[in-house]
């Protein structure tokens, strides 16, 4: 229990939190996983969602609760990263038949912002506005990061612009 907070009882997850959880969890987990790696990102997302429920009265009144929990998760991921072995990048999937050889390495070499933007926008199909809400930036900024990230990937893989 955190200092300054008082446990006043137990209750089941409210319908509003359950709804929020269902809508937010995939985007939050994928963004954090893209930022810090699959394992650490999933752990950070779970921590952030737990934090969200603990402080649900305050969190739900915020203008952008999903974005706030991304900050919480990003902070937790930083602590996890320092406490244990680093899991900073997407897992090794190069041996999988569906995976483009070299794509993982190209994604690793992007900045964190570019990697999150590229994976969420072009990999998972979220809009730049949806990603921007999560990252706390304008959609245009996400577009810029995604475009620069794609350009770097193309250069790394030696492919021409095809989209």
């Amino acid at each position, binding site marked *: 229990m955190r200092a*300054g*907070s*008082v*446990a*006043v*009882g*137990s*209750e089941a*997850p409210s319908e509003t939190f359950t709804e929020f959880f*269902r809508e937010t*969890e*995939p985007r939050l*987990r*994928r963004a954090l*996983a*893209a930022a810090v790696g*699959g*394992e650490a*990102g*999933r752990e950070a997302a*779970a921590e952030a*969602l*737990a*934090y969200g*429920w*603990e*402080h*649900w009265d305050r969190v739900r009144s*915020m203008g952008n609760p999903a974005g*706030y929990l991304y*900050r*919480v998760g*990003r*902070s937790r991921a*930083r602590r996890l990263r*320092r406490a244990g072995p*680093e899991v*900073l990048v*997407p*897992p090794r999937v190069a041996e999988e038949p*569906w*995976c*483009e050889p070299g794509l993982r390495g190209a994604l690793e070499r*992007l*900045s964190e*912002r570019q990697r999150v933007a*590229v*994976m969420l926008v*072009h*990999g*998972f199909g979220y809009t730049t506005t949806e990603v921007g809400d999560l990252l*706390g930036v*304008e959609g245009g*900024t996400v577009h810029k990061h995604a475009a*620069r990230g*794609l350009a770097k*990937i193309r250069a790394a*893989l030696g492919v021409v612009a*095809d*989209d």
Partner: protein
Amino acid sequence: MTDLRQRLESFCEGFDGAAPPVRIDEVFEERLGGEAVRLVQPRLRVRRPLPGWAVAVIAAVLVVVMATIGFLFARGSDGFLFVAATPETTEPVLLDAGSGFDAAAALITDDWPGGYPERLGNGTWITVVSDWQAGAVTPTTVWILEETGRWTPHEVAELRAVPLDGGYVRGGLLWAWVFHTSEVWNSADGVTWRLVDWGSAAPPVEPPRRLARTGETILMGGGDGGALYVSSDAGRSFTASTPFPGTLRHLWSTGEGFRAIVDSADAAGTIDLWRSGDGMGWEEMGRVSGLGDANLSWRSALSISSEALLLSDLDGPGSACDGDVYRSVDGGRIWQALDIVEWLTDGGPPFLQPACWSVASADGEWMLVGGYAAWGPPRAGVWGSRNGVDWYRIGSALAPHIGGNPAVGDPTAVTSEP
């Protein structure tokens, strides 16, 4: 599978499988002790409201105290400049006339149109702050601190000149970098700007650019190829230097020479420290430790002496506040994370709003701004330090949602970041 997006979709599909969904019962049962215990902040109960005269007295005392705190920002002729705005009231609340003007008279009051102020430069004779309206592509107005001690707005004729990346005062001119166009401008008065024409000597350095200066020598590097260009005439011409073997992560001046942090060519994820006297010949000094991953969006390396540095890893205004401040006392070889965000929040949740914290240095002193009192960080305010570890409060967050950036008169390193 020829389309890059199809390849990315396939990758992310597999990636999703490696990080499976978080179940809601997992959150409650495994992380909250099997109970859906919700923590609720205790409510403050006021038994009896204060009488009106007491409220008025307290308000008057607060006004006096707040005005007094404003004086505490003065830091000499080339000292700090700090401007803050409150989105709710759209009024800048405080600043430091670091150029020697009376800080009290320099308070912006009458015509400030709102939006976040973005500092351009602060020197011994000119202080310019651009008005960067939220959502605007470029600022349209610069505010100049006149000799009368009043801030006055000036419309900028050439909008391209107003940078989003800040600048510094050098050689009687205000220099500014414009990230989006890769241009460099300078101005004698902050209103009329001149595009610096480097002609064929223009350094083809891709953002994020790293810049450092010692005397008349200016280094500009960046891009994945480790490109580096050197000017020995204060930026009028540049000569290509031997590129670094990896991505140039940061570049700074020690006062006598330069140092650089560069991705190692022989081991992925590791960083090497390089040093140079003139910017042309470089010597590798060995591996850097303590900086974690190599994808930091480093904004500025702030020298306090030739050996002690503060490396600020933060996202700029308009972005969220990840990152940290790293300290080195051995010239950049070993770095220590200071956990600034956790310290500012005393272990609480991080900030969400832009410009939640930033750092600047002047006269051997570092300045840390961690604002946004509305989020309740216990240590919101303005802090000073001479070693990066011991911090003392030199100002408070005077209003909710304080945002702003510190600027210094003559920084030893200026960088830009997308």
